[in-house]
């Protein structure tokens, strides 16, 4: 069972991501099931990070208090998570923020809105070669 941390302040977006992460089709593609761990804010993520490891982290950018960029920077310099694949989900309008996220060490960007298939593909891409 691989654990995936989802950091997103919208409950329904989290629910959607969770459904995709825990869907059987992803399990089939990876040969292993994924379990979704949900964080509703940057702080929540800070709480949950030490409870890792996580196979992958999915994060929004535009969040109150600790934003997604700060979270990425933090994750990339932490001992435990510096190599954990990081997927950003955010809207296209925050183009500059997205570029920044990639520079800071995010591995992929999936623009919102996304179809389940788009996110699934991105997850498979990131998870397949990590093994």
């Amino acid at each position, binding site marked *: 069972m691989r654990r995936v941390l989802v950091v997103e*302040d*919208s*409950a*329904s*977006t989290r*629910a*959607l991501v969770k*459904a995709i992460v825990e869907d059987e089709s992803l399990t089939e593609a990876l040969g292993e099931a994924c379990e979704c761990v949900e964080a*509703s*804010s*940057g*702080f*929540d993520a*800070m*709480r949950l*990070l*030490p*409870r890792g490891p996580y196979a992958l982290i999915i994060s929004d*950018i*535009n969040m*109150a*208090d*600790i*934003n*997604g*960029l*700060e*979270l*990425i*920077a*933090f*994750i*990339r*310099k*932490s*001992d*435990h*998570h*510096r*190599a954990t*694949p*990081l997927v950003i989900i955010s*809207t296209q*309008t*925050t183009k*500059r*923020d997205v*570029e*920044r996220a*990639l*520079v*800071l*060490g995010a*591995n992929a960007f999936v623009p*919102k*809105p*996304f179809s389940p298939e788009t996110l699934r593909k991105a997850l498979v891409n990131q998870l397949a070669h990590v093994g």
Partner: protein
Amino acid sequence: MEKAREDFLSEAQELVDSLSRDLLVLDQQTRRGDSDPELVNDLFRAIHTLKGLAGLFGAARMAAVSHELEELLDDLRLGRVELGVKVVDLLFRGVELYGLLLLAEKGEAPEPTRVVEEFLFRLGELTHQGGTGGASQVAQYEIDSSILGVLTEYEEHRLRTNMKAGVSLYRIHVALALTTIDTALDDIKAAARPLGEIITYLPSGSGSDADRIELDILMASHADLDGLRAAFRGLDVAVEAVKKRGGGDSSAVARSAQTPDPPQSPARSSPAPVPAAVPDDGLDEAVVTPWPADVALAPVERAATASLGVAGETTGSGLTLPPAFPPVGADGAQGQRDNRDLSLRSVSQTVRVDIRKLDNLMNVVGELAMVRAAMGRMTERVRAEPQLRAWGSELHRLQRTFERHLTQMQNGILEVRMVPLGQVFEKLARVVRQISREHDKVVNLVITGAETEIDKLIVEELSDPLMHMIRNAIDHGIELREERTLVGKPAAGTVALNAFQKGNHVLIEVEDDGSGMSPERLIDTAVKRGLLKRSEAEELTTREVYNLIFLPGFTTRETATDLSGRGFGMDVVKTNIAKLGGVVDISSAVGIGTKITITLPITLAIISVLGVEVHGRSFAVPLASVEEAITFDESLVRNFDGREALTQRGATLPICRLSRLFGLEDQASPPGESRARRHAKPCVVIASVGNRRLGFVVDRLVGQQDVVIKALGKSLKSVRGFAGATELGDQRVGLVLDVAALMEEFLASDKERISEGARAR
């Protein structure tokens, strides 16, 4: 996915609600001439989230509207568009539109295509007139790029605005125990608020400590370093002035943040090694640098912090304690340990619960109520045995305690289910505005009692009936302006929506000051539509005449309008209200107006009933409609036109013999019942619904109980007169009478047919 979609709708609704609240505050601020950047940002974030949601769940129109609104708010928060009354108006319009769009998403209304287009057009006019405010000139920045690199565009804008205003930047380092993080942050925010603006929270430290996190809070403030340190005294934080790029002496920065410094920073630390996962294409070192492993501050600064005594105060001897090991006093450490078990505390204090889960809980309470009833009887039996007296009183005490707690639990669950009627009324207010506009009638809606609470399930079912009633009131009731002036009424009509609680019922009145209903005209219409024979009409009471409007197919309109008069509506209203256990009453006066009153039970979840026996069978009469029970004296029965009645306190009370109505008379009693029946004292249970009264003749009263009604199965659904079945505690199943329906059918005078019908069943 279904779950996610449900979540989407309720989250979107919540977002729209909070948007609406925030807008009201913004409106006030705008009128006063000030504005809170955080509020505008909250609005932006809410719209941004809505847009994301709408896109994810395929709500294209909502996404389009959100996209444009987001642009507008982005312009507002980045200072590209001036905040004014016109903008706020448009934002309000947007919230209204979200309401329509959400209804459409739920399938409860058509897509408001035209309105959306119009709105988008107006928005477009506004956003595109805004000039180019020289937005992102990051290069001019004087802040260390290690900070810049992790700021979102908005945070960067706030930073720039503050720098332009000559405000100094500070970094507040703090280590927070995860257990107490929420309260600790609140304290810090409260201390910071009067002095300036928190730009962002930068997590620092290694992240390997599972119990606490370290933060650098970036704050802009007019206050000087000493002032800030004084403000944060006692909060275990270390305050430092932030170095500008190329700045040497930090106190110089604090004094004059705007002084352009040479771009090269001697104090700048080398960037952290770029992790392997970072894609190396498109990396622009000149503009963006990854967050360095070390905080880019001169050691001098830290020494200053300590020597000024702020950190020293809390650490005692911690003069050289670096921020990575935060000053934690003995008391603080103790506090952290004490709170450790609170660690996974959720940030939010509210939970969203599916009403069905509450129904299930209520069902369990219902079962417990039955257990209680059975236990009560057993306790009475034990107490009656002289040799078991000690046990009996012990049992009795336990029974009382159980009863008390059960009542508390029941009330608790009921309370959770209660919502104020204002929820529906608000929606109706919008409807009234819309209808009166379309109809060119001026109508004032006067609402009283919006705070009256009622079961959530009932509220959900109320909006449609109430909407029909209000439409009728405006369409049929309120006259055209000229007509009103002609008869000396104010040109503006009034529709009053009143709610209040009366015992276990909630009454809702829809009252208009329109033309009223003429009984003659109602009769003429009913006869013309073949719903009534002319000969029958003469026997109808005024009340019965008004009730004609509840007949399916009844309409006084020759042609249907958009609003009402399509021949359905009031009969649906009545059916829907009856389903909720309520009744509808009408009173009207020609030329003065019409008042329709809905009487509803407060909750559907549990009801108190009076258990009765008829011909050896158990029935339950909902206590809410029982007025009293009196002994039945056969000799006092009088006959009016084939109807039996008693005279009670000077008023005529029609009676209904349940054994006859249900066709039990000619059936053999269940075994063992004949003896009981001989000793039974027949009673009349006087029931009233609205203004109507009827006495049910029963063989015996059993007692009062609280029960959960179980609906009759599908095959029995068409049987009228029963609300459902229930277990009456002594393992006997009894039918619960639907008093309103029984009364209606019985008083509808066609009792022959009913009793035959009942027999056939």
